[in-house]
């Protein structure tokens, strides 16, 4: 994730010296836009992740409880995941028009496969003896899920969240084609005017945001699972 960012920065720096690829003057005049595009980008991302996670949690619960539904759920998820994003936006515009929810439908559909797979894998990964002990202690089904299975599935679920977040941040850039702002708006502007500076700016900001969010989630996972780091000892 950071390697392309570094490469991009290198291009940027070199271009600056020759004063052709990036006009720093233009960038400094548009700092307000950078801020408002960031807000838009983050907003689109968060809404997509929140809805995607909620829908996926329900689907994962279904898949865990009724194992037969797991294959069809992941099958549909896979189909959604493999539709090219631009094509999906194109198919949705005649139905839902341009706008926020058109973008969200597409974005959410990309997260389903990632979330469902990771939530189910996380819960499946809880050792059978731990589940049996939880039952034998007298946990109700819901108490077991909340107090035992979800905490132990957390690392796998967060791993899914990181992949989904990075994927969505990249796709929000593409979602500018349905008219929602975000960093993609810089890129569309640059393409329209044949002016490279906003194109480079949009790409770099998108990559930086993805890298930051990914690192933040990795840190959050470590903070939430202190037990996973303390190993060994004993006699």
């Amino acid at each position, binding site marked *: 994730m950071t390697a392309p960012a570094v490469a991009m920065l290198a291009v940027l720096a070199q271009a600056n010296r020759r004063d052709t690829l990036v006009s720093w003057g233009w960038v400094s005049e548009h700092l307000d836009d950078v801020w408002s595009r960031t807000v838009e980008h983050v907003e689109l991302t968060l809404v997509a992740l929140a809805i995607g996670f909620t829908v996926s949690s329900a689907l994962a619960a279904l898949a865990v409880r009724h194992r037969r539904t797991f294959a069809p759920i992941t099958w549909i998820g896979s189909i959604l995941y493999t539709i090219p994003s631009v094509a999906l936006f194109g198919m949705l515009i005649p139905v839902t028009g341009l706008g926020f929810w058109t973008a969200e439908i597409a974005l959410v559909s990309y997260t389903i496969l990632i979330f469902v797979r990771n939530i189910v894998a996380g819960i499946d990964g809880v*050792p*059978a003896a731990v589940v049996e*002990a939880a039952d*034998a202690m007298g*946990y109700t089904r819901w108490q077991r899920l909340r107090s035992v299975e979800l905490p132990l599935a957390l690392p796998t679920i967060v791993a899914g969240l990181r992949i989904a977040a990075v994927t969505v941040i990249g796709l929000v850039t593409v979602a500018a084609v349905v008219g929602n702002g975000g960093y993609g708006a810089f890129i569309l502007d640059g393409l329209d005017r044949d002016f490279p500076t906003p194109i480079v700016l949009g790409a770099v900001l998108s990559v930086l945001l993805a890298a930051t969010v990914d690192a933040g989630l990795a840190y959050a996972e470590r903070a939430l699972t202190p037990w996973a780091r*303390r190993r060994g000892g004993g006699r």
Partner: protein
Amino acid sequence: MGAESGGVAVSIRDLTKQYPGAPTPAVRNLSLDVAAGEVVALVGPSGCGKTTTLKMINRLIEPTSGTIQVLGRDQAELPVHELRRAIGYVIQQIGLFPHRTVAANVGVVPGLLGWPKARIAERVAELLALVGLPADAGSRYPSELSGGQQQRVGVARALAADPPILLMDEPYSAVDPLVRARLQDDLLALQAQVGKTIVIVTHDIDEAIKLGDRVAILAEGGVLAQYDTPDELLRAPADEFVAAFLGRERSLRRLGLRRVGEVRSEPAATVAVRATTAEALGAAEGMGARWVLVIDGDAEPVGLVAVADLRHHSRSGAAGRTVGEGLEPDRRPPVVDSTWPLREVLDAVLRSGSGGALVDDASPARCVITLDALAEALR
């Protein structure tokens, strides 16, 4: 231990478990009572349904037919989570919650029962001490403990809400033999304090004999082959299967169950090595003893001689010989105390080459346990 506290804690009637698709039931028409305060071991070869039976008691597995009463109530009438909170459960894989500290693991059931935090903390500290864990273990995670320590935490967790009944599913088969023996001894010591009703599943007949007040031997297909005290099982196995399962050393195992204090030892006449055969005979006949203990100048026992042998020597004209001369060298009788298992006494006697062991107790008369007495104990 023992079943003195009266009453039946677990009463199993006509219990059958037929898994769908299995050709034969895992458990078939099993009826079995466990008295309150008793340790019952369920033992048998794999596929005998012992674990299935155990798990039907706390309804981790639902029976196909039959009933189980727990403390006089049909357990099928209770909400399942309430039933389980009243029954402690320990499994081989331990199943500690890896994301919770040891203290939180032990406090699980009290927490579910809604105890106040302070009371839970107090109880956790008490239990860690009871199972022999250091107080600071409470703040560690399970992965930081050794296997034996984790198993102790498992026992502490099962006992947390002071349930009257404790179920244990092969609790010690995953630890090495030395640790296992210690954990077994600790369980017996713990049981002497807490007096729970314990049902323990094991595939190890020695473990069953060591821990069980009574042992239920299950045959393949979940049929109860025999249910008796260890001593009675070993003395009179019900059939070929039970005899084969108990193995060829039944008598030795029975000796392992009894201790010196439980059998009759007999007084022996004590004479010095310099005493003559006639003097030794006189001393023995004076007190009606069948054995003469020969001691050296430091009052250490150096040999054990049967009175019958002395009479034989006497008749063949050696009445004037000292008893010391008649002794074979290096046949000192071993000295045992009343806590020794008879099996160890037998081993010591055989190794020493003498005819018996000297019992070291407070009484002024020197008493011995002879090979005859050991054989008598098995009658």
